[in-house]
Protein backbone atom coordinates (compact mmCIF):
# COMPACT_ATOMS: atom_id res chain seq x y z
CA UNK A 1 0.00 0.00 0.00
CA UNK A 2 0.98 3.58 -0.57
CA UNK A 3 2.06 5.93 2.13
CA UNK A 4 -0.01 8.68 3.67
CA UNK A 5 0.26 12.08 2.08
CA UNK A 6 -1.05 15.44 3.21
CA UNK A 7 -3.94 16.24 0.90
CA UNK A 8 -7.17 18.22 0.89
CA UNK A 9 -10.06 15.88 1.61
CA UNK A 10 -12.00 17.03 -1.48
CA UNK A 11 -9.04 16.19 -3.70
CA UNK A 12 -8.69 12.84 -1.97
CA UNK A 13 -12.35 12.08 -2.72
CA UNK A 14 -11.77 12.81 -6.41
CA UNK A 15 -8.74 10.54 -6.26
CA UNK A 16 -11.00 7.83 -4.85
CA UNK A 17 -13.34 8.34 -7.80
CA UNK A 18 -10.35 8.06 -10.10
CA UNK A 19 -9.19 4.90 -8.31
CA UNK A 20 -12.68 3.50 -8.83
CA UNK A 21 -12.13 4.03 -12.57
CA UNK A 22 -15.51 5.60 -13.22
CA UNK A 23 -16.87 5.87 -16.74
CA UNK A 24 -18.90 9.02 -16.39
CA UNK A 25 -19.06 12.06 -14.13
CA UNK A 26 -21.90 14.53 -14.53
CA UNK A 27 -21.78 17.40 -12.09
CA UNK A 28 -22.46 21.06 -11.59
CA UNK A 29 -20.08 22.94 -9.31
CA UNK A 30 -21.51 24.22 -6.05
CA UNK A 31 -19.82 25.36 -2.86
CA UNK A 32 -18.46 23.46 -0.93
CA UNK A 33 -18.41 20.50 -3.32
CA UNK A 34 -16.52 22.46 -5.99
CA UNK A 35 -12.99 21.17 -5.46
CA UNK A 36 -14.09 17.59 -6.01
CA UNK A 37 -15.55 18.17 -9.45
CA UNK A 38 -12.88 20.68 -10.45
CA UNK A 39 -10.20 18.14 -9.75
CA UNK A 40 -12.08 15.38 -11.55
CA UNK A 41 -12.51 17.64 -14.54
CA UNK A 42 -8.75 18.24 -14.56
CA UNK A 43 -7.98 14.55 -14.26
CA UNK A 44 -10.18 13.82 -17.27
CA UNK A 45 -8.82 16.77 -19.28
CA UNK A 46 -5.24 15.74 -18.54
CA UNK A 47 -5.91 12.18 -19.67
CA UNK A 48 -5.29 10.82 -16.18
CA UNK A 49 -8.78 9.40 -15.91
CA UNK A 50 -10.40 7.74 -18.88
CA UNK A 51 -13.98 8.93 -18.34
CA UNK A 52 -16.59 11.27 -19.74
CA UNK A 53 -16.86 14.47 -17.77
CA UNK A 54 -20.13 16.25 -18.52
CA UNK A 55 -20.36 19.82 -17.23
CA UNK A 56 -24.15 19.93 -17.12
CA UNK A 57 -26.25 23.08 -16.83
CA UNK A 58 -27.87 22.18 -13.50
CA UNK A 59 -28.00 19.53 -10.83
CA UNK A 60 -31.36 18.40 -12.14
CA UNK A 61 -29.58 17.60 -15.39
CA UNK A 62 -26.65 16.07 -13.52
CA UNK A 63 -28.79 13.43 -11.87
CA UNK A 64 -30.85 12.89 -15.03
CA UNK A 65 -27.67 12.29 -16.99
CA UNK A 66 -26.32 10.00 -14.28
CA UNK A 67 -29.44 7.88 -14.61
CA UNK A 68 -29.02 7.64 -18.38
CA UNK A 69 -25.36 6.75 -17.99
CA UNK A 70 -26.01 4.18 -15.30
CA UNK A 71 -28.85 2.70 -17.35
CA UNK A 72 -26.38 2.22 -20.18
CA UNK A 73 -24.20 0.19 -17.82
CA UNK A 74 -21.54 2.79 -17.04
CA UNK A 75 -20.00 3.34 -13.62
CA UNK A 76 -21.40 6.74 -12.75
CA UNK A 77 -20.53 9.46 -10.26
CA UNK A 78 -21.73 12.88 -9.21
CA UNK A 79 -21.31 15.23 -6.27
CA UNK A 80 -23.30 18.10 -4.91
CA UNK A 81 -24.30 20.15 -1.85
CA UNK A 82 -27.48 21.60 -0.34
CA UNK A 83 -29.25 23.78 -2.97
CA UNK A 84 -27.82 21.55 -5.68
CA UNK A 85 -29.31 18.51 -4.02
CA UNK A 86 -32.58 20.37 -3.67
CA UNK A 87 -32.64 21.15 -7.37
CA UNK A 88 -31.87 17.50 -8.03
CA UNK A 89 -34.60 16.35 -5.67
CA UNK A 90 -37.10 15.18 -8.27
CA UNK A 91 -34.54 12.92 -9.92
CA UNK A 92 -32.94 11.82 -6.64
CA UNK A 93 -36.08 9.78 -6.02
CA UNK A 94 -36.05 8.28 -9.47
CA UNK A 95 -32.49 6.89 -9.37
CA UNK A 96 -33.26 4.21 -6.74
CA UNK A 97 -36.67 3.52 -8.27
CA UNK A 98 -34.91 2.59 -11.50
CA UNK A 99 -32.31 0.69 -9.43
CA UNK A 100 -29.37 2.75 -10.68
CA UNK A 101 -26.12 2.21 -8.73
CA UNK A 102 -24.98 5.83 -8.93
CA UNK A 103 -22.50 7.09 -6.35
CA UNK A 104 -22.84 10.64 -5.11
CA UNK A 105 -20.70 12.56 -2.67
CA UNK A 106 -22.84 14.96 -0.72
CA UNK A 107 -20.66 17.66 0.78
CA UNK A 108 -23.05 18.67 3.52
CA UNK A 109 -24.14 22.28 3.54
CA UNK A 110 -27.12 23.90 5.18
CA UNK A 111 -30.26 24.59 3.22
CA UNK A 112 -31.14 28.22 2.58
CA UNK A 113 -32.75 30.39 3.87
CA UNK A 114 -31.26 32.41 5.10
CA UNK A 115 -28.66 31.90 2.40
CA UNK A 116 -25.83 29.87 3.82
CA UNK A 117 -22.91 28.14 2.23
CA UNK A 118 -21.77 26.65 5.53
CA UNK A 119 -22.07 23.23 7.00
CA UNK A 120 -24.84 21.31 8.67
CA UNK A 121 -26.94 18.27 7.77
CA UNK A 122 -30.17 19.88 6.63
CA UNK A 123 -29.50 18.92 3.01
CA UNK A 124 -29.13 15.18 3.56
CA UNK A 125 -31.89 15.03 6.15
CA UNK A 126 -34.31 16.40 3.57
CA UNK A 127 -33.53 13.38 1.40
CA UNK A 128 -33.49 10.65 3.99
CA UNK A 129 -36.65 8.94 2.76
CA UNK A 130 -35.66 8.60 -0.89
CA UNK A 131 -34.16 5.06 -0.86
CA UNK A 132 -30.52 6.04 -1.25
CA UNK A 133 -28.04 4.22 0.93
CA UNK A 134 -26.40 6.90 3.08
CA UNK A 135 -23.08 6.83 4.90
CA UNK A 136 -21.27 9.56 6.85
CA UNK A 137 -17.52 10.12 6.93
CA UNK A 138 -15.80 11.51 9.97
CA UNK A 139 -12.37 12.15 8.51
CA UNK A 140 -10.52 12.27 5.21
CA UNK A 141 -9.39 8.67 5.09
CA UNK A 142 -12.91 7.57 5.79
CA UNK A 143 -14.24 9.82 3.01
CA UNK A 144 -11.82 8.14 0.62
CA UNK A 145 -12.60 4.62 1.79
CA UNK A 146 -16.36 5.12 1.92
CA UNK A 147 -16.28 6.29 -1.70
CA UNK A 148 -14.78 2.99 -2.85
CA UNK A 149 -17.14 1.12 -0.56
CA UNK A 150 -20.06 3.01 -2.10
CA UNK A 151 -19.35 1.68 -5.59
CA UNK A 152 -18.87 -1.82 -4.25
CA UNK A 153 -22.22 -1.77 -2.47
CA UNK A 154 -24.25 0.13 -5.08
CA UNK A 155 -23.27 -2.17 -7.94
CA UNK A 156 -23.74 -5.41 -6.06
CA UNK A 157 -26.42 -7.43 -7.89
CA UNK A 158 -28.34 -7.89 -4.63
CA UNK A 159 -28.41 -4.13 -4.05
CA UNK A 160 -28.49 -2.00 -7.22
CA UNK A 161 -29.32 1.18 -5.39
CA UNK A 162 -27.55 4.54 -5.38
CA UNK A 163 -25.25 5.45 -2.51
CA UNK A 164 -24.72 8.88 -1.02
CA UNK A 165 -21.48 9.44 0.89
CA UNK A 166 -21.82 12.40 3.23
CA UNK A 167 -18.96 14.58 4.33
CA UNK A 168 -19.15 17.87 6.14
CA UNK A 169 -18.61 20.96 4.02
CA UNK A 170 -15.46 22.97 4.83
CA UNK A 171 -14.82 21.44 8.26
CA UNK A 172 -14.00 18.21 6.47
CA UNK A 173 -14.06 18.86 2.72
CA UNK A 174 -11.56 21.72 2.80
CA UNK A 175 -9.07 20.55 5.39
CA UNK A 176 -5.76 18.91 4.63
CA UNK A 177 -5.31 15.55 6.26
CA UNK A 178 -2.86 12.66 6.03
CA UNK A 179 -4.60 10.21 3.70
CA UNK A 180 -3.49 7.02 2.04
CA UNK A 181 -4.59 7.12 -1.60
CA UNK A 182 -4.85 4.18 -3.99
CA UNK A 183 -4.09 3.59 -7.63
CA UNK A 184 -6.69 1.96 -9.87
CA UNK A 185 -4.75 -1.28 -9.60
CA UNK A 186 -4.81 -1.17 -5.81
CA UNK A 187 -8.51 -0.30 -5.75
CA UNK A 188 -9.09 -3.09 -8.28
CA UNK A 189 -8.22 -5.68 -5.63
CA UNK A 190 -11.46 -4.71 -3.98
CA UNK A 191 -13.62 -3.11 -6.63
CA UNK A 192 -14.35 -5.29 -9.64
CA UNK A 193 -15.71 -3.94 -12.93
CA UNK A 194 -19.43 -3.21 -12.89
CA UNK A 195 -21.58 -5.89 -14.46
CA UNK A 196 -25.09 -4.54 -14.91
CA UNK A 197 -28.02 -6.86 -14.35
CA UNK A 198 -30.16 -4.89 -16.76
CA UNK A 199 -29.13 -2.15 -19.17
CA UNK A 200 -30.24 -0.21 -22.19
CA UNK A 201 -29.43 -2.55 -25.03
CA UNK A 202 -30.86 -2.43 -28.54
CA UNK A 203 -30.56 -6.22 -28.79
CA UNK A 204 -32.70 -6.69 -25.72
CA UNK A 205 -34.91 -3.64 -25.42
CA UNK A 206 -36.41 -2.68 -22.08
CA UNK A 207 -38.54 0.22 -20.93
CA UNK A 208 -37.22 1.92 -17.82
CA UNK A 209 -39.28 4.44 -15.93
CA UNK A 210 -42.78 3.42 -16.94
CA UNK A 211 -45.92 4.55 -15.17
CA UNK A 212 -46.78 2.92 -11.86
CA UNK A 213 -50.56 2.89 -11.90
CA UNK A 214 -52.33 2.48 -8.53
CA UNK A 215 -52.56 -1.27 -9.11
CA UNK A 216 -48.77 -1.62 -9.08
CA UNK A 217 -47.25 1.44 -7.35
CA UNK A 218 -47.45 -0.11 -3.88
CA UNK A 219 -45.76 -3.29 -5.11
CA UNK A 220 -42.96 -1.20 -6.61
CA UNK A 221 -42.45 0.56 -3.28
CA UNK A 222 -42.31 -2.82 -1.58
CA UNK A 223 -39.51 -3.83 -3.95
CA UNK A 224 -37.46 -0.71 -3.16
CA UNK A 225 -38.01 -0.95 0.58
CA UNK A 226 -37.05 -4.62 0.56
CA UNK A 227 -33.93 -3.86 -1.45
CA UNK A 228 -32.64 -1.12 0.83
CA UNK A 229 -33.34 -3.14 3.97
CA UNK A 230 -31.57 -6.14 2.52
CA UNK A 231 -28.63 -4.00 1.41
CA UNK A 232 -27.32 -3.90 4.98
CA UNK A 233 -25.82 -7.35 4.65
CA UNK A 234 -23.92 -6.32 1.54
CA UNK A 235 -22.83 -3.08 3.22
CA UNK A 236 -21.40 -5.03 6.17
CA UNK A 237 -19.78 -7.66 3.96
CA UNK A 238 -18.21 -4.95 1.82
CA UNK A 239 -16.74 -3.31 4.93
CA UNK A 240 -15.45 -6.65 6.12
CA UNK A 241 -13.77 -7.30 2.79
CA UNK A 242 -12.34 -3.78 2.80
CA UNK A 243 -10.75 -4.52 6.15
CA UNK A 244 -9.31 -7.78 4.86
CA UNK A 245 -7.81 -6.14 1.78
CA UNK A 246 -6.61 -2.82 3.20
CA UNK A 247 -6.57 -3.32 6.96
CA UNK A 248 -8.98 -0.49 7.80
CA UNK A 249 -12.09 -1.76 9.52
CA UNK A 250 -15.48 -0.08 9.41
CA UNK A 251 -18.82 -0.77 11.00
CA UNK A 252 -22.25 0.88 10.96
CA UNK A 253 -21.91 2.43 14.42
CA UNK A 254 -18.65 3.60 15.90
CA UNK A 255 -18.19 3.86 19.66
CA UNK A 256 -15.60 5.67 21.74
CA UNK A 257 -15.18 5.08 25.49
CA UNK A 258 -18.78 3.92 25.84
CA UNK A 259 -17.88 1.05 28.11
CA UNK A 260 -19.34 1.84 31.52
CA UNK A 261 -20.14 5.39 30.45
CA UNK A 262 -23.06 7.00 32.25
CA UNK A 263 -23.84 9.42 29.46
CA UNK A 264 -23.21 8.74 25.79
CA UNK A 265 -23.17 11.44 23.15
CA UNK A 266 -24.50 10.53 19.74
CA UNK A 267 -23.19 12.36 16.66
CA UNK A 268 -22.66 12.05 12.94
CA UNK A 269 -19.87 13.27 10.71
CA UNK A 270 -16.82 15.35 11.50
CA UNK A 271 -17.98 16.92 14.79
CA UNK A 272 -17.34 13.49 16.26
CA UNK A 273 -13.63 14.38 16.29
CA UNK A 274 -14.32 17.39 18.53
CA UNK A 275 -16.67 15.24 20.58
CA UNK A 276 -13.85 12.77 21.26
CA UNK A 277 -11.61 15.60 22.46
CA UNK A 278 -14.43 16.80 24.71
CA UNK A 279 -14.88 13.30 26.07
CA UNK A 280 -11.19 12.96 26.88
CA UNK A 281 -11.28 16.27 28.75
CA UNK A 282 -14.48 15.36 30.63
CA UNK A 283 -13.07 11.95 31.50
CA UNK A 284 -10.03 13.72 32.98
CA UNK A 285 -12.45 15.62 35.20
CA UNK A 286 -14.04 12.34 36.27
CA UNK A 287 -17.23 12.67 34.19
CA UNK A 288 -18.21 9.30 32.81
CA UNK A 289 -19.01 9.96 29.13
CA UNK A 290 -18.62 8.17 25.83
CA UNK A 291 -19.45 8.70 22.17
CA UNK A 292 -21.42 6.84 19.58
CA UNK A 293 -21.72 7.84 15.96
CA UNK A 294 -23.65 6.61 12.99
CA UNK A 295 -21.52 5.83 9.98
CA UNK A 296 -24.46 4.14 8.29
CA UNK A 297 -27.68 6.10 8.32
CA UNK A 298 -29.69 4.41 5.55
CA UNK A 299 -30.61 1.66 5.91
CA UNK A 300 -30.96 2.51 9.60
CA UNK A 301 -28.76 0.02 11.50
CA UNK A 302 -31.48 -0.96 13.97
CA UNK A 303 -30.02 -4.16 15.43
CA UNK A 304 -26.54 -2.68 15.74
CA UNK A 305 -27.96 0.39 17.40
CA UNK A 306 -30.01 -1.55 19.93
CA UNK A 307 -26.99 -3.69 20.73
CA UNK A 308 -24.76 -0.64 21.13
CA UNK A 309 -27.06 1.07 23.64
CA UNK A 310 -27.74 -2.03 25.67
CA UNK A 311 -25.90 -0.93 28.82
CA UNK A 312 -26.27 2.79 28.39
CA UNK A 313 -28.57 4.75 30.64
CA UNK A 314 -28.46 8.23 29.11
CA UNK A 315 -28.14 9.10 25.45
CA UNK A 316 -27.63 12.71 24.30
CA UNK A 317 -28.30 12.97 20.58
CA UNK A 318 -26.75 15.88 18.74
CA UNK A 319 -28.58 16.71 15.52
CA UNK A 320 -27.10 18.99 12.88
CA UNK A 321 -30.46 19.69 11.32
CA UNK A 322 -33.81 20.90 12.46
CA UNK A 323 -37.11 19.34 11.57
CA UNK A 324 -39.42 22.31 11.94
CA UNK A 325 -42.50 21.83 14.02
CA UNK A 326 -41.73 18.23 14.84
CA UNK A 327 -40.50 16.60 18.01
CA UNK A 328 -36.77 17.07 17.59
CA UNK A 329 -33.94 16.62 15.14
CA UNK A 330 -34.29 13.76 12.66
CA UNK A 331 -31.63 11.57 14.27
CA UNK A 332 -33.11 12.07 17.72
CA UNK A 333 -36.59 11.14 16.56
CA UNK A 334 -35.42 7.97 14.86
CA UNK A 335 -33.21 6.96 17.75
CA UNK A 336 -36.01 7.41 20.23
CA UNK A 337 -38.43 5.53 18.01
CA UNK A 338 -35.93 2.66 17.67
CA UNK A 339 -35.99 2.24 21.44
CA UNK A 340 -39.70 2.59 22.11
CA UNK A 341 -40.51 -1.10 22.39
CA UNK A 342 -37.32 -2.08 24.19
CA UNK A 343 -37.89 -3.26 27.74
CA UNK A 344 -34.69 -1.70 28.99
CA UNK A 345 -33.83 1.51 27.25
CA UNK A 346 -31.79 4.62 27.95
CA UNK A 347 -33.26 8.03 28.59
CA UNK A 348 -32.82 9.97 25.37
CA UNK A 349 -32.39 13.73 25.15
CA UNK A 350 -32.23 15.67 21.91
CA UNK A 351 -30.02 18.64 21.10
CA UNK A 352 -29.72 20.59 17.89
CA UNK A 353 -26.33 22.22 17.38
CA UNK A 354 -23.95 23.41 14.71
CA UNK A 355 -26.50 24.81 12.27
CA UNK A 356 -25.33 26.78 9.24
CA UNK A 357 -21.64 26.48 10.03
CA UNK A 358 -21.82 27.38 13.72
CA UNK A 359 -18.87 25.63 15.35
CA UNK A 360 -19.70 22.85 17.75
CA UNK A 361 -17.05 23.36 20.36
CA UNK A 362 -15.72 21.30 23.24
CA UNK A 363 -17.57 23.69 25.57
CA UNK A 364 -20.84 22.95 23.80
CA UNK A 365 -20.37 19.23 24.24
CA UNK A 366 -19.67 19.80 27.93
CA UNK A 367 -22.84 21.90 28.12
CA UNK A 368 -24.85 19.17 26.39
CA UNK A 369 -23.52 16.51 28.73
CA UNK A 370 -24.24 18.55 31.85
CA UNK A 371 -27.77 19.30 30.61
CA UNK A 372 -28.42 15.66 29.78
CA UNK A 373 -27.17 14.63 33.19
CA UNK A 374 -29.44 17.18 34.88
CA UNK A 375 -32.50 16.04 32.88
CA UNK A 376 -31.68 12.41 33.57
CA UNK A 377 -31.62 13.06 37.28
CA UNK A 378 -34.98 14.80 37.11
CA UNK A 379 -36.28 12.05 34.86
CA UNK A 380 -37.31 14.51 32.15
CA UNK A 381 -36.11 17.33 29.99
CA UNK A 382 -37.44 19.54 27.20
CA UNK A 383 -38.69 17.73 24.08
CA UNK A 384 -35.51 18.95 22.44
CA UNK A 385 -33.23 21.88 22.73
CA UNK A 386 -31.23 24.16 20.47
CA UNK A 387 -27.73 24.68 21.76
CA UNK A 388 -25.82 27.95 21.61
CA UNK A 389 -28.74 30.22 20.68
CA UNK A 390 -27.93 33.82 21.63
CA UNK A 391 -30.66 35.14 23.88
CA UNK A 392 -29.32 38.69 24.18
Amino acid at each position, binding site marked *: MGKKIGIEVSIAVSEAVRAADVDLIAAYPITPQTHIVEHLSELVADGKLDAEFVPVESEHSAMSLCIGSSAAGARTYTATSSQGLALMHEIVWIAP*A*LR*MPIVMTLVNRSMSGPISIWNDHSDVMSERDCCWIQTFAENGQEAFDLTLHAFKVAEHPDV*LLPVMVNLDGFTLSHVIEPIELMTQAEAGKYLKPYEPT*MRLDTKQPVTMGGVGIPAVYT*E*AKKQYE*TAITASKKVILDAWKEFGEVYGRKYKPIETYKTKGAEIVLMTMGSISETAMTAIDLMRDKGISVGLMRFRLWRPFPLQEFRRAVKNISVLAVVDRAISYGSQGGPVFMEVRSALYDQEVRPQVFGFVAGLGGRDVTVDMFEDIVSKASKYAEKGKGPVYEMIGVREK
Partner: protein
Amino acid sequence: MAKKKVDAVLAWRDLELGMAITDPGSSAQLKTGDWRSQHPVVDHEKCIKCGLCWIYCPDMAYSPGKEGYYDWNGDYCKGCGICASECPKGVITMVMEEE
Protein backbone atom coordinates in the same frame (compact mmCIF):
# COMPACT_ATOMS: atom_id res chain seq x y z
CA MET B 1 -34.43 -12.02 -18.90
CA ALA B 2 -37.61 -13.99 -18.84
CA LYS B 3 -40.34 -12.74 -21.16
CA LYS B 4 -43.22 -11.89 -18.97
CA LYS B 5 -46.71 -10.74 -19.69
CA VAL B 6 -47.36 -7.31 -18.34
CA ASP B 7 -50.01 -7.67 -15.75
CA ALA B 8 -50.99 -4.83 -13.53
CA VAL B 9 -51.82 -7.23 -10.73
CA LEU B 10 -48.36 -8.85 -10.45
CA ALA B 11 -47.20 -9.66 -6.95
CA TRP B 12 -44.31 -7.46 -5.86
CA ARG B 13 -41.74 -10.24 -6.08
CA ASP B 14 -42.63 -10.77 -9.73
CA LEU B 15 -41.95 -7.20 -10.77
CA GLU B 16 -38.82 -6.69 -12.85
CA LEU B 17 -35.89 -4.82 -11.35
CA GLY B 18 -36.81 -1.16 -11.01
CA MET B 19 -40.24 -1.84 -12.54
CA ALA B 20 -38.64 -2.22 -15.96
CA ILE B 21 -40.80 -3.47 -18.79
CA THR B 22 -38.94 -6.20 -20.61
CA ASP B 23 -41.60 -7.08 -23.14
CA PRO B 24 -41.74 -4.41 -25.89
CA GLY B 25 -45.15 -3.21 -27.07
CA SER B 26 -46.76 -4.33 -23.88
CA SER B 27 -48.94 -1.30 -23.24
CA ALA B 28 -51.62 -2.88 -25.46
CA GLN B 29 -51.98 -5.50 -22.73
CA LEU B 30 -52.79 -2.89 -20.16
CA LYS B 31 -56.51 -2.22 -20.46
CA THR B 32 -57.21 1.26 -19.24
CA GLY B 33 -60.83 1.63 -20.34
CA ASP B 34 -62.28 1.02 -16.92
CA TRP B 35 -61.35 4.51 -15.77
CA ARG B 36 -64.05 5.93 -18.01
CA SER B 37 -67.15 7.72 -16.81
CA GLN B 38 -68.53 8.32 -20.30
CA HIS B 39 -67.96 7.00 -23.81
CA PRO B 40 -68.39 8.28 -27.36
CA VAL B 41 -71.18 7.12 -29.65
CA VAL B 42 -70.68 7.83 -33.36
CA ASP B 43 -73.59 8.46 -35.70
CA HIS B 44 -72.31 6.67 -38.80
CA GLU B 45 -75.17 8.08 -40.92
CA LYS B 46 -73.57 11.52 -40.73
CA CYS B 47 -69.89 10.55 -40.43
CA ILE B 48 -67.77 11.79 -43.35
CA LYS B 49 -64.91 9.34 -42.65
CA CYS B 50 -62.36 12.12 -42.21
CA GLY B 51 -60.41 10.19 -39.55
CA LEU B 52 -59.92 13.11 -37.17
CA CYS B 53 -61.30 11.09 -34.26
CA TRP B 54 -58.68 8.44 -35.00
CA ILE B 55 -55.90 11.04 -35.22
CA TYR B 56 -56.88 13.02 -32.14
CA CYS B 57 -57.68 10.19 -29.74
CA PRO B 58 -54.80 10.20 -27.24
CA ASP B 59 -55.36 6.55 -26.42
CA MET B 60 -55.53 5.08 -29.91
CA ALA B 61 -59.03 3.88 -29.15
CA TYR B 62 -60.11 4.25 -32.79
CA SER B 63 -58.75 2.21 -35.65
CA PRO B 64 -59.59 2.20 -39.36
CA GLY B 65 -62.44 -0.24 -39.93
CA LYS B 66 -64.78 -1.40 -42.67
CA GLU B 67 -65.98 0.92 -45.43
CA GLY B 68 -63.77 3.75 -44.27
CA TYR B 69 -65.38 4.12 -40.86
CA TYR B 70 -63.44 4.08 -37.61
CA ASP B 71 -64.00 1.40 -35.01
CA TRP B 72 -64.04 2.36 -31.37
CA ASN B 73 -62.35 0.10 -28.78
CA GLY B 74 -63.73 0.39 -25.27
CA ASP B 75 -60.73 -1.39 -23.71
CA TYR B 76 -58.62 1.75 -24.07
CA CYS B 77 -61.01 4.70 -24.32
CA LYS B 78 -60.77 6.82 -21.18
CA GLY B 79 -63.77 8.92 -22.04
CA CYS B 80 -61.91 12.23 -22.38
CA GLY B 81 -64.29 13.50 -25.06
CA ILE B 82 -61.56 14.85 -27.34
CA CYS B 83 -62.97 12.95 -30.32
CA ALA B 84 -66.41 14.42 -29.74
CA SER B 85 -64.98 17.89 -29.50
CA GLU B 86 -62.77 17.50 -32.62
CA CYS B 87 -65.26 15.78 -34.93
CA PRO B 88 -65.90 18.41 -37.67
CA LYS B 89 -69.45 17.19 -38.22
CA GLY B 90 -70.37 16.97 -34.58
CA VAL B 91 -71.57 13.40 -34.96
CA ILE B 92 -69.91 12.02 -31.82
CA THR B 93 -71.98 12.18 -28.63
CA MET B 94 -70.57 11.43 -25.20
CA VAL B 95 -72.86 9.14 -23.24
CA MET B 96 -72.57 8.52 -19.49
CA GLU B 97 -71.56 5.00 -18.47
CA GLU B 98 -74.24 2.98 -16.74
CA GLU B 99 -73.61 2.68 -13.00
